[in-house]
Every structure is written in structure tokens, then in C-alpha cells.
């Protein structure tokens, strides 16, 4: 009889572990906590309308951002989603599934929140207690893991193989990819310092404790810089003249003639915590 106790305990723990994702609270609603410029809420079967600060979104709605715009959503379980420019994001109520139709997001799922699955045209990424950045571009998806790890499954893979992407790694998949390519290592410290999604002005706090640990871990590993870099979105690889040299931030001008991120005065779409 006593011999059965360890087995029963092990079985119970295993069952609990297996069941834990389903015990996590599903995503029900998210609050818009920050708005910069042109952010619109898309109600079901209605035309997009300007989003309002503190507005609560449900799964019947999605969020769109325009050029040089960004917004932030905070879910009830403190899952944080920062949405970059030219993006379209939605989630499915009653599940922990999200969708990024296009654009960029930073997603931080707190430990113990039950994880999340986020879908793009190319891939489904599953995360549990992780901070990632994801870009759904024309024809490709880019995933960068800032801390923790994510499992990605290309939609083109009939065998539904999962590839693990760890902190400090980046993967770029074409939409038609049948297999995830091997991740490449990137300099997390530089990335976080130069990323608006990770370090820009926002309302909700991004928990950087684990990100800082991942940066410290990279420093301990003594990774070697290369002369290759990707600047911003997409897969446009730049060959630097000197390996690991920190290039100045790119100045790419938007149609208003202003450096990207700068808001022209009296722009009716602009907003934010202190905006109209």
C-alpha cells in the first residue's frame, strides 16, 4: 500500500502539471493604457474609430496603429502587449490566443499567468512566462526572445514540429517556411536600449528583471560580435565595417518629413496619457 503512495503522488503532480495551462485564466479583456498618434479600435463589422485611453477591448475588437504610432494593452492578468507602428493586433476571448496580422509587438507574459499563443501568417509562437518581440511583415515573421523561451511552429510544417527559441535568439521565417531555421544570437543589451517597444516611454512598467538577467547571462557567455546587423524591422542585413560596432540609430523619414517617431504638432490622431 505504502509503495503505491509515491506513484500516486507522482501521477497527481504529473496530471496537475499537464492540466495547468488549461487552469490558467483565459484572456477576457484588455485596457488601452497608452496611445501615441494614430491608434484605432476596430469594432466587429464597423469602421475603425480612434481609440480612447483606458478603453477596454474585448475579443470582438482589434487594434490598429498607423505610421509612427504605438499603443499599449494591459490584460487583467498583467499580460502586457506593446504594439508598434503600422500594426494590427487582436485576441480571442476565452482562450489565451492572440493574433498579429501585421506590424510589431512586444509581449510580456508574467510567470504563472498560463502562457499565451500568438499567431502570425507564418507561425504560431507559444510562450509561458516570457518576454518576446514579434514582427509580422510582408511575407515573413520575426521573433526575438528577450527572456525565457518560446516554442514556434511554422504553419507550413505538416508535422507541426516545435522549435525552441531562447533568450537572446532571433528567428526569421518566410510565410511559406516548412521548417524553422536555426536561431541566430543577437546582442540583447543593444537591442533593448535601441528598441522603442522595450525602452520607450510607456504607461505600464515592463518587468526588466529577467531581461537584465538574460543580458548578464550573454555577457558571461562572452559572445563574439560579428559584422552583421539587422536594423529595425525585416530581414535587411547590414554588413558593418567593424564587428559589433554600435551604429547610430537610423534616420528614416516618414512622409511628413520628420524623423520617425516625432509627432507633428496639431496632429488630430496624436494622443497618449497627456494627450487630448
Amino acid at each position, binding site marked *: 500500500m505504502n509503495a503505491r503512495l509515491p506513484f500516486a503522488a507522482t501521477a497527481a503532480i504529473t496530471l496537475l502539471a499537464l492540466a495547468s495551462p488549461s487552469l490558467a485564466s483565459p484572456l477576457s479583456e484588455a485596457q488601452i493604457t497608452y496611445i501615441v498618434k494614430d491608434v484605432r479600435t476596430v469594432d466587429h463589422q464597423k469602421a475603425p474609430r480612434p481609440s480612447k485611453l483606458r478603453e477596454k477591448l474585448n475579443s470582438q475588437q482589434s487594434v490598429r496603429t498607423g505610421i509612427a504610432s504605438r499603443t499599449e494593452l494591459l490584460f487583467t492578468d498583467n499580460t502586457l502587449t506593446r504594439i508598434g507602428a503600422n500594426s494590427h493586433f487582436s485576441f480571442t476571448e476565452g482562450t489565451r490566443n492572440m493574433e498579429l496580422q501585421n506590424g510589431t509587438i512586444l509581449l510580456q507574459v508574467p510567470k504563472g499567468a498560463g502562457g499565451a499563443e500568438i499567431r502570425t501568417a507564418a507561425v504560431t509562437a507559444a510562450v509561458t512566462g516570457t518576454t518576446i518581440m514579434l514582427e509580422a511583415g510582408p511575407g515573413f515573421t520575426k521573433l526575438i526572445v528577450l527572456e525565457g523561451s518560446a516554442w514556434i511552429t511554422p504553419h507550413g510544417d505538416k508535422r507541426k514540429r516545435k522549435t525552441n527559441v531562447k533568450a537572446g535568439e532571433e528567428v526569421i521565417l518566410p510565410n511559406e517556411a516548412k521548417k524553422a531555421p536555426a536561431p541566430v544570437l543577437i546582442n540583447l543589451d543593444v537591442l533593448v536600449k535601441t528598441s522603442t*517597444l522595450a525602452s520607450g516611454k510607456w504607461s505600464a512598467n515592463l518587468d526588466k528583471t529577467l531581461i537584465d538577467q538574460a543580458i548578464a547571462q550573454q555577457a558571461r557567455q562572452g559572445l563574439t560580435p560579428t559584422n*552583421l546587423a539587422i536594423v529595425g524591422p525585416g530581414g535587411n542585413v547590414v554588413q558593418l565595417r567593424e564587428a559589433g560596432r554600435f551604429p547610430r540609430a537610423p534616420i528614416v523619414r516618414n512622409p511628413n518629413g520628420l524623423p520617425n517617431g516625432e509627432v507633428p504638432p496639431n496632429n488630430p490622431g496624436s494622443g497618449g496619457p497627456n494627450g487630448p
Partner: protein
Amino acid sequence: MYTTLPAFRSPTGRLAVLALAGCLAAPCHAQSAALIDQARLRSALLNVQPENLDEDADGDGVPDNIEGEAVATPGDRDLGLQLIMKPKERAHLLRLFATAQAYYTDNVRLTNYNPQSDAYFFSEIGARYEGKLTEDWNVEATVRQAFFRYDDFSNLDFESLNAGAGISYKLPQHPDLMFFSRYNCERLTADDLDDQFFLNQTLSLGLQKSWVTHGSSLYYLGYASSFGFADPSAAERDEHGLYGGARWQLSECLGAEIYSRLAYFDYDSGQHDWNYMIVPSLTYRFNEWCELSASLSFVLNRSNRDLFDYDAFSGGGGLGLKVQF
């Protein structure tokens, strides 16, 4: 008619064994491996095509082809700069390896007189050390023991013990150009390691130029001369050869290589040979420590001694295991 093949103590047997051992000697590619590694890194980035690898002459992080253009792209600053890193190269690497392969050859004695075909089994164990002295100077030392066992002509069975060390230097301004020098001692035995019938010491000098393409391909061309000091001295020879080859990483696991060499053999005995060899091969890597390989080789030898005007074809493959520290 030949009823028995020449034993090792005959000049023919010695030269055949020596030539076979020479054919199996792999060229030194430590630098090439590093270049391939970098190319693979590039390739891993979205299967980067040459048109995606933009120049950034002014170093401001903006590719020249979009420099100054008033084009807004989604999230220019949202994601930030992604400087690509690679794992730190290990300054010292010790590798233990073991190989078991089976081959067929259509000219087991490497002669033009009544060529005979046979199959043979090749197994090898060894250890290799690679170390970085500085950014440009590398050293390497290898010890290997190989066993050759023939199917029909078992009187040709032999073993080969190789021990050698080399040093290479990459030009700082042209890291794809490498000079190398190597000492090697080879002891051939018959009858299960006991009976030494050939001892050869060689000193090699050479240079190699490599080219890496964006698609994880490597091309190399080199020249090497080696000077031998052999016992018995009748089989002593110097070699001067041009070699070249290419490696292609066809997929994450599958690689292809072709190696070719044209060499002039100058024997102390007065024999002079022109020797050409071409070896295409395929390697499938299951994981870090296990790979399957297959190769073909064709050797053409033209000598001032008619007996050694031979052609030889061989093909086979096998499993290789390695553990590295």
C-alpha cells in the same frame, strides 16, 4: 598469371600502400571551417541572399541602398538594432574520433599490371587538438591509428599510425589566405601492429586561399610541398602539388564536398610520377557527434615506370563518431 599479390616488402606493395595512405590523408582545413561557420551564420539569417546583404559604407547602420530616402517602414525603431553575435570560439579544442567505413576499389595494388578489384574495411580511432595561439596563429596536433582489412587479398592488410603537428598563420589583412607548415610521422605495420615495414617522416609547407559565398559555400585553392624521409629509403619521395576544392552546405544536416589535387611525386629511387586525384563526397550529420559519409575517388597516375601508370577508382562510406571537449 598472377596467383599471389606482391607482399608489402616488395616495392610495388610499398608504393601502393603509400599511395593509398596519401590518398586518404585529408587536407588541413581549420581556417576553412571557421569561414564556413561565418557563412552558415549569414545563411541562417533568413537564408540571406546576396541582394539582402547591403553595404553600409558610412557605418551609420542604414544600408546604402536606402540611405537618405524618405521611406517610412513599419516600426523602424520599434524593434531596435539587432547586432548579430556568435558563440565565442574556443581557444582549445580536443576531439576524439572513431570511423568505420567500407570501400570497393577496382585496382587494389595500384598498378597497371593485371589490376584486381577488392573491398576493404577501414577503421580508425584518433585524437586531434586544435588551439589558437593568437588571432592569426593556430596549432594542431593529431594522432590516429587506422586499420585496413581487405576482403580477398588479406595479405595486403596493414595498419597505419600517424602522429603529426602543424602550425598555420592567417594574414591579418587577408584572413582568407593561410600559410601552413606541418610535421608528420607515419608508421605502417602488418601483422597486427607488430611488424613495421615502412616509416615515413614528412615536413610540409604550403599556402591556401579560401573564398566563402553567402550561401554557406566554401571554395579553396592551395599549394603544398612535402619532403619525406623514409625507411626504407627506396620509397622515400617528395611531393609538390596544387589542390583545390569546394564545400556546399546543402541543408542543415547535409553537406557536399569535392577535393582535387594534381601532384608531382619525386622518389629517391628515380621514379617520377604525375598524380591526379578527385574525390567527391557527401556527409550527413545526425548531430554533433555522429555523421554518415560516402565518397568516391578516382586516381590517375602517370609514371616514368610503366608499372605505375595506373588508374584506380574506389567508392564507399561509413559512420563517423566524434566527441569533443
